[in-house]
């Protein structure tokens, strides 16, 4: 029976079951993003002290639901879509046990709904971290557990699909780099979900009264095995998306398969050590343990990200230079398709992730420097750079690619779509920079009132802190407008976009020859061949292939070094402690 169709624009083969699973996971993710975005408005307008919109009850409820929907539900649903895409679609094979994948999806959906209901009922405003001994309603934990189990099932189906592809020989040689990145994400996901089960199941039983006591410190250590590692799934997934987009738009090939794969491998080995970053100023945690873990064993996972930060734009530069955009250092970048949101979204994601997310993450994750940053608003500034811009914007860019390729619809409102990554990325960048500043002045995260209304003692933040928070809020509002634009374009395109059959539409100018259309007429796709070998002239390894990218990388390194030592200097000014 023929179960495949080939996308005439991209040449991707979609298996019918896989296609549906990719669609439902992606759509569920976007719904979670919508909820998170609406809540973000409440959070932003409350932390803008002059506006101070919500009551404390509503603020903490909104913040809890915003965090969980944005950081867990949106991202993990979308990652499930990416896993099925990176296995079934890229490897041109049927999906293993689609029934199980559906069961996993339904469990995730059920869990997400139950958890949201618990939070909106108002007695589970415990933040995403739900630190014991603060207690939520039992179904708060139950929802998260169901969601995690569902995700694990879908991850296992992904591994099964890899086995199917291997056994049925649907591809030649080793798996593509993008699939390799997805495998990295899936392996980290298994570790993450295991940590989640170890801590959330006892916590659930405790909330029901079957267990008397949850040790608060143990909760923190194990919970962060879930909390931080899940962010490492995101890093692996969005780096894979960067490579994918570089490949689709530019025909870019990895500068070196060995280097890029080795960097992903370093993620598997070291990224999960990052749970230590959250317990650097906790009681009783040993110094050596902190130094080893907080540095991911001598920063080898940071090294991996720095490698991807060079090789992704580097591969684009090499491809562009081969097309003749080889003048000076930056012609390749100037002549890139900046009006295509697939590219601009991906590139803004890369730059903000590296310059803001990466550098601030290492700085605040340094054992002693954490003393001046822990639990200040610097922390959410950091993870908005990594997750809201790094991951979310990369996934948004991929969505623009998937609308015509997967959903076969033309993207509506192309002008809005063109500006969307700039609005969202720009707004987020303002939010991030000014929250970093406010954090440096000691402004607390997860805090309803900078004026401490009703407190017995008086404390006043410097006036500058209020100004910084107000500007951050304006950036946040801009980002929300960018989020609304994304939802308008994507949801609008799915509902009202012109059906593409067989027209190529939106992406035509960046893709190769169109293939003849035929819906699910393919019984067995052709084996996915190896990428063609480079000719000797094309192989630039003798020269310095990507000077522009190297210059950008040096700019990153210099900013990194300067900012890192500024923070040590700041630390040296606080009360001596030992």
């Amino acid at each position, binding site marked *: 029976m023929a179960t495949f169709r080939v996308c005439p624009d991209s040449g991707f083969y979609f298996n019918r079951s896989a296609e549906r699973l990719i669609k439902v996971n992606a759509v569920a993710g976007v719904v979670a993003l919508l909820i998170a975005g609406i809540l973000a408005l409440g959070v932003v307008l409350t932390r803008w002290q002059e506006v101070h919109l919500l009551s404390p009850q509503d603020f903490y409820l909104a913040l809890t639901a915003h965090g969980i929907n944005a950081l867990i539900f949106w991202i993990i649903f979308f990652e499930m879509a990416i896993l099925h895409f990176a296995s079934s679609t890229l490897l041109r094979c049927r999906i293993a046990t689609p029934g199980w994948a559906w069961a996993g999806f339904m469990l995730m959906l059920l869990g997400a709904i139950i958890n949201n209901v618990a939070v909106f009922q108002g007695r589970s405003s415990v933040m995403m971290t739900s630190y014991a001994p603060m207690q939520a309603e039992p179904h708060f934990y139950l929802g998260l557990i169901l969601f995690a189990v569902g995700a694990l099932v879908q991850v296992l189906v992904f591994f099964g699909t890899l086995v199917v592809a291997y056994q049925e020989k649907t591809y030649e040689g080793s798996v593509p780099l993008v699939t390799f990145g997805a495998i990295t994400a899936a392996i980290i996901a298994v570790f993450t979900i295991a940590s989640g089960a170890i801590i959330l199941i006892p916590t659930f039983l405790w909330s029901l009264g079957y267990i008397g006591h949850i040790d608060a410190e143990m909760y923190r250590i194990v919970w962060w095995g879930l909390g931080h590692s899940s962010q490492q799934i995101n890093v692996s997934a969005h780096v894979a998306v960067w490579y994918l987009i570089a490949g689709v738009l530019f025909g870019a090939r990895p500068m070196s398969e060995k280097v890029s794969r080795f960097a992903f491998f370093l993620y598997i080995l070291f990224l999960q050590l990052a749970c230590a970053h959250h317990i650097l100023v906790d009681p009783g945690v040993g110094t050596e343990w902190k130094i080893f873990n907080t540095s991911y064993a001598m920063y080898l996972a940071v090294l991996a990200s720095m490698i991807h930060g060079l090789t992704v734009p580097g591969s684009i530069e090499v491809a562009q230079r081969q097309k003749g955009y080889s003048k000076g250092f930056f012609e390749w970048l100037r002549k890139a398709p900046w009006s295509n949101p697939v590219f601009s979204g991906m590139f803004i994601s890369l730059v903000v992730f590296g310059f803001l997310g990466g550098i601030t993450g290492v700085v605040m994750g340094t054992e002693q420097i954490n003393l001046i940053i822990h639990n200040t608003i610097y922390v959410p500034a950091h993870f908005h750079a990594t997750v809201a811009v790094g991951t979310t914007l990369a996934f948004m860019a991929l969505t623009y690619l998937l609308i015509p390729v997967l959903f076969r619809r033309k993207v509506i409102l192309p002008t809005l779509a063109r500006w969307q990554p700039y609005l969202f990325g720009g707004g987020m960048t303002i939010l991030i920079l000014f929250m970093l500043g406010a954090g440096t002045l000691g402004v607390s995260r*997860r805090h309803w009132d900078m004026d401490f209304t009703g407190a017995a003692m008086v404390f006043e933040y410097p006036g500058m802190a209020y100004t910084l928070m107000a500007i951050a809020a304006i950036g946040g509002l801009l980002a929300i407008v960018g989020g609304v634009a994304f939802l308008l374009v994507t949801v609008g395109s799915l509902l009202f976009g012109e059906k593409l059959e067989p027209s190529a539409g939106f992406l035509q100018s960046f893709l190769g020859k169109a293939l003849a259309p035929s819906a699910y007429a393919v019984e067995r796709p052709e084996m996915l061949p190896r990428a063609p070998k480079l000719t000797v002239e094309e192989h630039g390894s003798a020269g310095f292939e990507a000077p522009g990218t190297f210059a950008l990388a040096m700019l990153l390194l210099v900013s990194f070094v300067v900012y890192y030592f500024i923070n040590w200097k700041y630390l040296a000014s606080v009360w001596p402690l030992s």
Partner: protein
Amino acid sequence: MTSYMPPADRVWWKVPVGRVELVWIALALLWCIIMFLMMPYWHVYGKQNLSTEAYQTTPAKFGARVQEMVDQYKVREEAGMPVVAPPAGSDIYLLGRLWQWWPILELEKDQSYRLHLSSMDWQHGFSLQPTNVNLQIVPGYEMVIQITPDKAGEYGVICNEYCGIGHHTMVGKIYVKE
């Protein structure tokens, strides 16, 4: 010919790595090692390091020790809260609970104290402002750090770990005298 196709070379792991990548990896690795060494360096030469001294405790036990200090060294009251001035070099105590830091401490500049911190109920965040020192306060654990206030003045202790609806009213005070 791209990132989403299998590598062009069957034995891709033997293809030599280009110069751009090699130079970058070497520089990045060097930087990683420097950052790693900064942490032990600061333990030896820096003045801001967190001790690892900590004990398991209970709210009752810790509360009793705080009370003992208050009874012994109370000098006055402010807004119903005792102000305590323990001698330089001594063990001093501060407890966090919903929603206050108790009691108010009065310290001397450039003198060292052993500060004991714990929570009576949920987790709290000890955020000493404006000097900006932030510590996690976990119930059941007593953390001991040596502090040396180096500037006189009035300091606020803000709770920066979310602890429920009155979180924003949890503000304490530490005085540092010349």
